[in-house]
C-alpha cells in the first residue's frame, strides 16, 4: 500500500489514535492498513455501535471511523451517542450507503465527515487531515511518499 507523509498529533507529536467500527472484519483490516500507511495507530476496534460506545470511553481515540449498517446499533445512532457524551469526538462515517439522508442524519448527530466505500486511501487521508485541522500536523519524515 502507498505510504503517506505521517499525520501526527500537534500537541505531542504522537501518532493519531483511531477507533475503527465496522461489523466486517475485512473492512476493519482494510482500514487498519490504511491507518498504518498514514502513520497512525489503531487504539481499538468494534463490530457494532454499542461496542463502539464502550470502546470510545475506554480508549479515548483521536478519530472514530464508523460504519453505518451494523447489527445491534447502527453507526449513525452510535455516533450521536458518542458525540453527546464527548462533544469533542471526531467521528468520520465510512459506509457504502452514501445517500443524502444518511449523510445529513450523521452530520446532524455530530459526525464530522463522510467517506463512501470502497474507501480510497488518498481520499481518507485528506479527510483525516481536514477533520484534525490544527490538532494534526503532517510530518516530513524521510521516506514518506504522497
Amino acid at each position: 500500500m502507498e505510504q503517506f507523509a505521517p499525520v501526527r498529533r500537534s500537541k505531542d507529536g504522537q501518532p493519531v489514535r483511531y477507533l475503527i467500527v465496522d461489523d466486517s472484519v475485512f473492512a476493519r483490516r482494510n482500514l487498519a492498513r490504511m491507518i498504518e500507511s498514514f502513520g497512525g495507530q489503531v487504539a481499538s476496534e468494534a463490530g457494532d455501535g454499542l461496542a463502539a460506545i464502550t470502546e470510545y470511553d475506554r480508549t479515548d481515540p483521536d478519530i472514530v471511523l464508523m460504519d453505518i449498517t451494523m447489527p445491534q446499533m447502527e453507526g449513525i445512532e452510535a455516533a450521536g451517542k458518542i458525540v453527546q457524551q464527548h462533544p469533542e469526538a471526531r467521528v468520520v462515517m465510512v459506509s457504502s450507503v452514501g445517500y443524502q439522508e444518511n449523510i445529513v442524519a450523521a452530520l446532524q448527530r455530530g459526525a464530522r465527515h463522510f467517506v463512501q466505500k470502497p474507501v480510497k486511501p488518498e481520499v481518507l487521508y485528506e479527510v483525516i487531515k481536514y477533520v484534525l485541522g490544527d490538532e494534526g500536523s503532517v510530518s516530513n519524515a524521510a521516506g514518506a511518499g504522497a
Partner: protein
Amino acid sequence: MKMELIQPFINAADAVLAQGLQCCTSIANLSMEEEGYRRKGVAALVWLTGDIEGRIIFDLAPETAVRVASRMAGAELPESDELVRETICELANQVIGNAVTTLNDEGFHFRVHPPALHTSDEGSRSSEDTEALVMCFETASGNVFMNVALRYNRRRQADRAVAAGE
C-alpha cells in the same frame, strides 16, 4: 424487473470490483433465472426493504472467492479462512450500498440489511412479481455472479401515487 432498477447494480458492481481487484471487468452473461437458485460456492445475501424489496446474492466459486479475497486483503488466504467469507460479504455490502445510493438519489427509499453468509444450496424459484436476474461479471480473479430478485413494494407505490395525485 425494470432496467432502471438493475442498471445501478451493474454500475456499482463494475466499479467496486474494478477498484477492489485493480482490474477491468465485463459482463459475460445476463439472464433471467429459469430454475430455482443454486449456490455456486461462497455466497453473501443482502435483503432490502422499503420502496423496493427483495434480495441480492453475491456468489463465487470457492477458488474464485479465495483469489478475490486474497487480492482484496493484499495477502494469500487459505480457503478455510473466515476472512474469505467475510470479504465476499463486504464486497456485496459495498456493491449494494453504492447501487442503493444511486437509486435513493432517484427517489427510491430503502433500508439495507447487513450482509449474511448464504449457506443453503438452493433457493426458492422467483415468482411473477419478483423475477430474479443473474449477472456474471468476468474479472481477472474469476467470475462473480450477482443474483438480483427485487420487486416494487405495491403499498408504497400506491401511497406515492396518491401523494402525487395520480
